[in-house]
């Protein structure tokens, strides 16, 4: 394993922002794995750290197949993480909206450009990212429906679902989109949590990446075959919204199966404690996403449902 500085930025008072890349194996640029670009992506950091730990052992035992190079960048935005800010603290800009970046542009455009220069050219790009709406997901692989994506490769992670997303204007600055546009097979892996550590889904994410690398002939690793993934279009997810504001009582978790008409959440009057709304499932299906904050605003999305699918 070679640990090297792939980008650094001087700060007025703090130590330099130093972004490290950990390289395993030698040869062709096979796979690159990128961790948090946002300061609240603690789970993503944890997953990358566990991957580096495992790849270090695999390299030591000769399990990285010859002529393959894997790079892991475990953290890009620890400057924000250390002060508990989600975005770049100075101007609240989102590094994951600045790719491919500009080397002579604004600060976060420069960081993005510096990173992109190092991560492009790999055959497979895997990013541990988070959704713009905070909440919990079923672990899944997400890829942009750009017309050049390879959905069948995404199945090789062995996670329960592969999600296809039609890119919108605000996706054009993401690493995933730009990776794909530069010719890589790009995937974003989502686990159950973001700003907390969920060991079970973190381990699932680590295994899914190792499984993918094994199936692509990059490493030798004996692991469970995982799921035969179901592929879904993001557009087909059914949003379920709260009809009133108040204290939110969540009754279902990601992955739970629900029936039409079943009570899946309640909203409670924050002053008087009475239940003021019961949210009923509008369809049979599987819960894909859940709102997790204790308060909810009228019309806020509390669940996304995969319709008419059973566990």
């Amino acid at each position, binding site marked *: 394993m070679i640990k090297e500085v792939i980008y650094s930025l001087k700060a007025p008072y703090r130590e330099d922002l130093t972004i490290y890349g950990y390289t395993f194996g030698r040869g062709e640029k096979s796979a690159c794995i990128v961790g948090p670009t946002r300061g609240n992506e603690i789970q993503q950091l944890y997953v990358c750290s566990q991957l580096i730990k495992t790849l270090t052992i695999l390299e030591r035992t000769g399990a990285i197949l010859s002529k393959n190079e894997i790079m892991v960048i475990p953290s890009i935005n620890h400057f924000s993480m250390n002060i508990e800010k989600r975005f770049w603290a100075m101007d609240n800009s989102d590094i994951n909206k600045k790719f491919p970046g500009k080397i002579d542009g*604004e600060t976060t455009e420069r960081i993005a450009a510096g990173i992109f220069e190092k991560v492009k050219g790999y055959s497979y790009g895997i990013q541990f990212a988070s959704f713009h709406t905070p909440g919990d997901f079923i672990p899944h692989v997400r890829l942009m429906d750009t017309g050049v994506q390879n959905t069948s490769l995404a199945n090789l992670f062995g996670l329960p679902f592969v999600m296809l997303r039609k890119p919108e204007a605000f996706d054009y600055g993401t690493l995933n989109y730009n990776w794909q546009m530069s010719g890589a097979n790009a995937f974003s892996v989502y686990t159950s949590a973001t700003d907390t550590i969920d060991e079970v889904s973190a381990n699932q994410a680590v295994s899914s990446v190792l499984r993918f690398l094994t199936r692509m002939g990059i490493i030798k690793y004996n692991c469970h075959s995982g799921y035969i993934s179901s592929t879904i279009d993001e557009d087909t997810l059914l949003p379920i919204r709260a009809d009133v504001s108040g204290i939110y009582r969540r009754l279902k978790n990601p992955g739970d199966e629900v029936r039409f008409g079943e009570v899946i959440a309640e909203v409670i009057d924050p002053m008087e404690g009475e239940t003021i709304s019961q949210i009923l499932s509008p369809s049979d299906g599987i819960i894909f996403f859940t709102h997790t904050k204790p308060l909810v605003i009228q019309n*806020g999305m509390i669940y996304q449902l995969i319709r008419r699918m059973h566990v």
Partner: protein
Amino acid sequence: MIKTVVSVGLPVGEVLNIKKRTLKPEKIRGNEKRICIVTGIHGDELEGQYVCYELIRRIQEQISCLTGIVDIYPCINPLGLEAITRGVPTFDLDMNRCFPGSADGDMVENIADKVIDDVLGADICIDIHASDIFIREIPQVRISNENIEQLFDYAMELNVDFIWAYESPTVLQATLTHTLNQHGVPTLAIEMGVGMRLTKSYGEQIVDGLFSLMKKAGIWSGEVNQVRKPIVSTDGEVELVHAEASGIFVPDIEHWNGIRKGDAVGSIIEPITGEIKHKILAPCSGMVFSLREYPVVYEGSLIARILGGVES
């Protein structure tokens, strides 16, 4: 008349109301032109607040000269404005990237949808922004190249110092301005001043411009002040100056002044060593129309924009 455009219940004991003020002629004929003034989309931009106040005050002083309808939306993002937050608190979203919104969407999308719905049908809309807290701007209109023909004559009436025709990045398609222009309401965005501050002279300058525009549109019959002739520029004539060191920026120049190639724009200093880390020199001759206001900079922070080939 003050009307609530949209109400959203917040989780605990509060309702969020987005309001508008409507001023109408004393006698309604039914074919009046309508102008909408929108501001306060970003919670840290306050320059538009004085414009709303002064516009209403002057109209009311001569209400008999009002021949059209004026709808004023002083604050689209009240939570951000009172929390001194650019975006919408709790959502961490830039509201001006959420248009056209959705009637079935969450709070921000829902507000965006209702605001668009309320403005639709207007003959002109002006969206007033300040700069953010980092950069001071002269009063200016920014128009994407695709709308320049349709909006140029309106922009010339607004009494701004500068009209900047730019190539629209894709992300700006989610702005109020873009959305309304797409829906047939000619809409211009004004930028001026600096975030979290209010520049009275800029506000009065823009109010003069709004009266001039209203007169041209048949909404105002009273006397109006002569408007200034703005400098008109395209992207190719604007030079961006970025910090090439991190530290504290100390300007050597004043905002909206001429500068010659090689002149000092300012220095990035390091307080603990007493040293200059980077002396910033002008890359071209021209007018400095944007200048760094917030002193702390990282490598890459925007320091100035210079409009090349223009002298004071």
